[in-house]
């Protein structure tokens, strides 16, 4: 998990995004990308017809080839739901249907369940492909601007921005404190581990509290409105 949340990797990824040649989805306006994404989700999930999901997935993959987004984040996006999808397909195959295909260790695998599980996998990857196309090719600040344009309340957009910015910072602080606690014997027993993690959690919360006030006053000192 630590590798996924590495701030430096995120910054590198954002820089890579800025340097990327502008083609495919990179050329589209973020507002249009969000509209396309929600249209795809509506068609894919709302209608839940495997053929439509298949066509949308193919379109997404072709757009992928045209856009050629950064490989690292794309791979992560495509691999992230894989384990859940496999478990879902297995669960559906043995949990639904009336026509057994084969039996494994006394458990029957049904044809209908397999088709249904396959449908779920198709829908998941259709959505994930378009999610990746939208969010990998768009800097976060532009996504926030697009959300504002769609009249999402300011308080939610602002909070989302702070969440994105400080998530990585807080996690790095957590990791530093966690390493320090571990080297001081803070994880020798289960109870000590719980205590250490709780202490770190409390410290992070206290830092969050103080930092939030500092951020506010820094913004205010630079001309930010008091109630904004």
């Amino acid at each position, binding site marked *: *998990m630590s590798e996924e949340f590495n701030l430096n990797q995120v910054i590198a990824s954002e820089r890579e995004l800025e340097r990327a040649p502008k083609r495919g989805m990179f050329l589209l306006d973020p507002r249009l990308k969000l509209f396309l*994404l*929600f249209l795809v*989700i509506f068609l*894919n*999930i709302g209608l839940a017809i495997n053929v439509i999901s298949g066509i949308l997935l193919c379109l997404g993959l072709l757009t992928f080839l045209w856009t050629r987004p950064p490989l690292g984040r794309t791979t992560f996006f*495509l691999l*992230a*739901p894989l384990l*859940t999808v496999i*478990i*879902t397909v297995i669960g559906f195959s*043995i*949990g*639904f*249907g009336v026509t057994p295909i084969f039996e494994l260790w006394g458990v029957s695998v*049904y044809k*209908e*369940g397999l088709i*249904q599980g396959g*449908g*779920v996998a*198709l*829908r*998941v990857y259709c*959505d994930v492909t378009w*999610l*990746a196309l939208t*969010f990998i090719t768009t800097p976060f600040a532009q996504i926030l601007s697009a959300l504002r344009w769609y009249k999402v*309340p300011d*308080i*939610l957009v602002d*909070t*989302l*921005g*702070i*969440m*994105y*910015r*400080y*998530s990585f910072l*807080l996690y790095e602080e957590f990791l530093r404190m966690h390493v320090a606690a571990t080297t001081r014997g803070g994880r020798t027993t289960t109870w000590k581990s*719980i*205590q250490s993690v*709780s*202490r770190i959690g*409390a*410290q*992070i*919360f*206290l830092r*969050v*509290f103080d*930092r*939030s*006030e500092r951020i*506010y*006053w820094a913004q205010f000192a630079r001309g930010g409105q*008091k*109630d904004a």
Partner: protein
Amino acid sequence: MHISEGIITGIPAAVFTVVSLGLVGVGAKEMTKFAKEFPEKKPLLGMAGAFIFFLSLIPIPAFTGTTSHPCGAPMAAILLGPWIGIALTGLSLFLQAAFFAHGGFSTWGANVIILGVGGAMCGWAAFKISRKVGLSLVVSAAIGGFIGNILTYTFAGLTLASVLSTGPQPQYTFMQYLGVIYTAYLPTQGPIAIGELFMTGLIIKYVYEQRPEILESLKVVTVKVSIIFLVGFLLFLPIQTAVAQNMDNTVNNQQHQAAEPEGEETGMMGMDEAINESLAEKAGMPPRDPYINIEALGDVWNTIILLAGGICGFIIGRWWDLLFVGNQKCQKNSI
């Protein structure tokens, strides 16, 4: 807990999404109110959201299309209120779906209801009820964390079982699916729920120990009861002093009267002397001094009366708070 993309489709997905948008809308209103009341704490909302974001991003796969992990939502709700907790949950789930492919946009609505209502709202309610019945801050927070976590997974199981049992050609009934899902959750979620119990309680404890004013400013606890106690004590002190002086005067008068020669007017006698002792003498049991005669010890007697008064005042103040202040939904108790 996250129900993954593609599991819920069609009208149920739309209904979940609309209901969740309503809940997050109410949460957004509460957030705006919070930001207006405490403008300097506005960034805290984002940071609390970041906290939920991390905790609920540690997936442990379970049965068909769902995962286990700590919630974090109960603690956010305890600190910032249930509606803000729900709104932050919604934002956290949005970020997870957009940047980590965890959960999804089509199941965002269902996940908001599960984590927001089950985790944040129910966890907060458990915390508040525990405080009302007089449990300490730490124990109440621990109960809130535990109940929030358990109910999150209860809601997730119910949602998933209802979706699966109404799917085409289900192999099992609703209850059987529910049983299978809960059985799948138990080995991963049981220890995590216990962990969340301890962690929520301990985090609140450590924060309170180090910076109680933070919890007071967030209205998790207040000094109201402490103030009532202090005011009561300050009011009680002069009364006690007056009573003590009065008693001193009485004792002095009695001593003065006792020193006066017999046959002269002795003034008013106490009930013990006038009735009880005379009745005892008539019955053939003359009065004697007690084994520990504290009346004769002077100031010790006064001190004991003062202490008894203080203890009674504390008990009355405590019960007054439990019976009346609590019922008025002040939600302001001390540890």
